[in-house]
C-alpha cells in the first residue's frame, strides 16, 4: 500500500506530508462511495497546498458524513489500474471474485470489462477462486502471477475472517516500477455476522463508529419513508404487504417496522417510540399475526404507550393467543380493533 499517515488536524497533515515527500494525496476518512467524484480526495504538491486542502476537508461533510480525519498518502506514479473484489452475487446465490484489468473509478459502469469467477467457501479454509489461472486474465493484466495470487489470498482472507459481504480493491495500481499497490480498499461487513459473532464485533469496534454498531445489534428493523401512514407488523413479508395495501388504497407508508418474532408489550412500546419521531404521521397501522404472540400483552403495551406518548390514531389487528381479551382492552380505550388485514388498512387510510 502507498505510505500514508492518518491526521486529525492541519498541522499534523503538513508534518505528515513533509515526512512522506511530495506530491501527496489527502483522502477524507469517511465511509462513502465515490470519494473522488465528491471531492473527498485532493492532491497537494507542497506545504501550502497541504494546508489549503486539509482545511477544505477537515470538519466538513461529504455525503452527509463528517470528516474528522484525513489520510495523507504518497502519490504514486501509476502505470495501470486493476479492479478486484470478493462479494456475493445474490442472483446466482454464490460467492464470486470479480476482476477487471482496466480498473479505477467508474469500473461498475463498464461492467462488460469485468470477469467473474465463482468462489468456493469451506469452513476454516481460505476461499478458492475457481478457474482463475486458466483464464489468461493474469497475463493480460501484466502482473506477475505470484504477486497477484498473494494479493488475492490476502483479500480472500479478509473476506472470510471478517465475514465481509464485499472486499474491493479499486484501484489495484501497477506503478511504473511494476509494483502492485492497493490504492483504495473497501470492506463491507455482514450485519448478521456482527450480531452473531462477538469476536468479530470486538475487532470491528476498533474501527467503526460506536452508535452505528449499536443500531445493528438491535433486532428490530426500522426504515423511514416519506408517507403519512405508520406501519408496524410482525415479519418482514407481512409488513411489506401491509405497506403495499396502504398504497393500494391510495396513501403512502411512513415507514417499515418489523417487530420480529416474539412481539410483546416492550417491543410494541419501543416501536411506537421510534414512530413518534416521524413528521406528518396521520395514523399508525398495527398488524400482528402470530400463533404464540400474546395479543392481550400487545394491547396493554399499546394502551400504555397511548398514555405516555403523543400518538396519532391507532388501527390495530391482532391475531393469536388471547385475541378476545386484547379486543376488550382496545375497545375500552377507544382503539379500533380489526380481524382482517384489508379492512384494517382501508379504515386507516380513510379515517
Amino acid at each position, binding site marked *: 500500500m502507498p505510505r500514508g499517515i492518518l491526521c486529525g488536524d492541519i498541522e499534523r497533515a503538513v508534518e505528515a506530508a513533509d515526512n512522506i515527500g511530495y506530491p501527496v494525496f489527502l483522502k477524507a476518512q469517511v465511509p462513502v462511495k465515490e470519494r473522488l467524484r465528491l471531492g473527498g480526495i485532493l492532491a497537494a504538491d507542497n506545504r501550502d497546498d497541504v494546508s489549503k486542502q486539509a482545511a477544505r476537508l477537515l470538519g466538513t461533510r461529504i455525503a452527509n458524513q463528517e470528516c474528522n480525519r484525513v489520510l495523507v498518502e504518497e502519490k504514486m506514479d501509476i502505470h495501470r489500474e486493476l479492479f478486484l473484489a470478493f462479494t*456475493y452475487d*445474490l*442472483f446466482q*446465490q*454464490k*460467492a464470486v471474485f470479480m476482476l477487471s484489468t482496466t480498473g479505477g473509478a467508474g469500473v461498475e459502469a463498464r461492467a462488460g470489462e469485468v470477469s467473474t469467477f465463482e468462489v*468456493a*467457501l*469451506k*469452513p476454516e479454509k481460505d476461499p478458492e477462486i475457481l478457474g482463475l489461472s486458466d483464464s489468461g486474465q493474469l497475463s493480460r493484466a501484466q502482473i506477475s502471477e505470484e504477486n497477484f495470487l498473494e494479493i488475492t489470498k490476502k483479500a480472500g482472507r479478509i473476506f*472470510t475472517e471478517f*465475514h465481509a*459481504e464485499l472486499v474491493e480493491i479499486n484501484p489495484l495500481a501497477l506503478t511504473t516500477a511494476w509494483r502492485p499497490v492497493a490504492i483504495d480498499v473497501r470492506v463491507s461487513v*455482514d*450485519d*448478521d*455476522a456482527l*450480531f*452473531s*459473532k*462477538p469476536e468479530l464485533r470486538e475487532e470491528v469496534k476498533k474501527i467503526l463508529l460506536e452508535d452505528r454498531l449499536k443500531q445493528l445489534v438491535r433486532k428490530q*428493523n426500522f*426504515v423511514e*419513508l416519506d408517507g403519512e401512514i405508520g406501519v408496524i*407488523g*410482525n*415479519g*418482514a*413479508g*407481512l*409488513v*411489506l*404487504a401491509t*405497506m*403495499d*395495501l*396502504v*398504497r*393500494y388504497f391510495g396513501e*403512502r*407508508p411512513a415507514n*417499515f417496522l*418489523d417487530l420480529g*418474532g416474539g412481539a410483546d408489550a416492550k417491543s410494541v412500546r419501543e416501536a411506537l417510540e421510534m414512530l413518534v419521531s416521524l413528521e406528518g404521521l396521520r395514523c399508525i397501522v398495527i398488524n400482528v*399475526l*402470530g*400463533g*404464540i404472540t400474546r395479543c392481550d400483552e400487545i394491547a396493554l403495551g399499546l394502551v400504555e404507550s397511548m398514555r405516555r406518548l403523543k400518538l396519532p390514531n391507532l388501527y390495530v389487528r391482532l*391475531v*393469536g393467543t388471547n385475541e378476545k381479551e386484547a379486543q376488550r382492552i382496545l375497545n375500552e380505550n377507544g382503539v379500533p380493533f380489526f380481524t382482517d*388485514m*384489508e379492512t384494517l388498512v382501508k379504515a386507516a387510510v380513510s379515517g
Partner: protein
Amino acid sequence: MAILAHSETKLLVQGITGRQGAFHTRIMLEYGTRIVAGVTPNRSGQKVEGVPVYNSVREARGNHEFEASIAFVPSQTALQAALEAIQSGTIRLLVMISELVPIQEALIIRDLGKKNNVTLIGPNTPGIISPGKTKIGIMPSYIFKPGDVGIVSRSGTLMYEIASTLSSNGIGQSTCVGVGGDRIVGTKMLDIFKKFEGDPETGAIVLIGEIGGSMEEEIASHIQSNGLTKPVFAYIAGRTAPPEKRMGHAGAIVSAGRGNYESKAKALTVSGVKIAETPSQIVSLIKKNLSLK
C-alpha cells in the same frame, strides 16, 4: 404422500432444551409429528416432553433412527449444528429455524448439504407443514387445513396470512414450505415448485414472493421452458419498497435495478401465473380459475 416429509418421518430436534426448542417440541408432538430424539450439548440423559436428549447428533444416532432434523439453535452456533446434522450421514432433511445466520455460513451449509444429498430448508424459516400429517416447524397449526393447494413462501407471517385466508374460504393446503427470508437459502422456491409439480396431492400452487433476488423469475423461466402443468397463483410483497433499502429480510432488497416487483410480476404473468394485487385476491383468483373450488 406429501412433499419433503410425511406422517411417518422421524424427526430429531437440535437445541431441544432451549426455550424455543422445548416449546415447539411440545406443539409438534401434539400435532402428531414423530419426534424421536433431541440434542443439546451437555444435556445427555435429560428428557423434554418425554423425548430423550443427547449430547450430539452422533450420540442420538447411536440410539435412534431418524431421517430429518429441525434446528432451534442461535445463529452463533448454527454452522456447527448444521455441520453435525449433515455429517451424520442419515439426515436427509434439515430445517433451520435460526435467524441472522451470517451469509458466509449459510452458503457453506448449503453447499455442504448439496454435496451430501441433504435438503436444507432455511435458514430463517418457519419450516414445513403438511396439514393433518406432519409439522416440522413453528407455524400456528390452527391456521392450516388439509386440502390440495401447495404454498411456497419467502415470508413466514405472510404465509400464515394467506394460508389463513385460504382456509377460511374452504381452500385447504397440501404442504406449505417457508424457504426463508435470507439472501442465501438452502432450497430455492423453484426446487419446491418442482416438487409440487410432481406431487399428486397438490392440485394448484401458490407462490408468496418478495422483492430482491431472482427466485420468482427462475420459476417463470422454468414454466416457459416446460409449460404450466398446474394452475399457479402468486402474491409478491414489497411493491412499495424503495430501492437499495434493506427492509427486514436480508433477501428483500432491490439492488442496481434488479430484483424489483415489476421484473417478477412481468416474468410470472408472461408464463401464465395469475398475480394477486392483495393477499386476499389469491382466494378470488383460485375460485375463478378452478371450477371445483
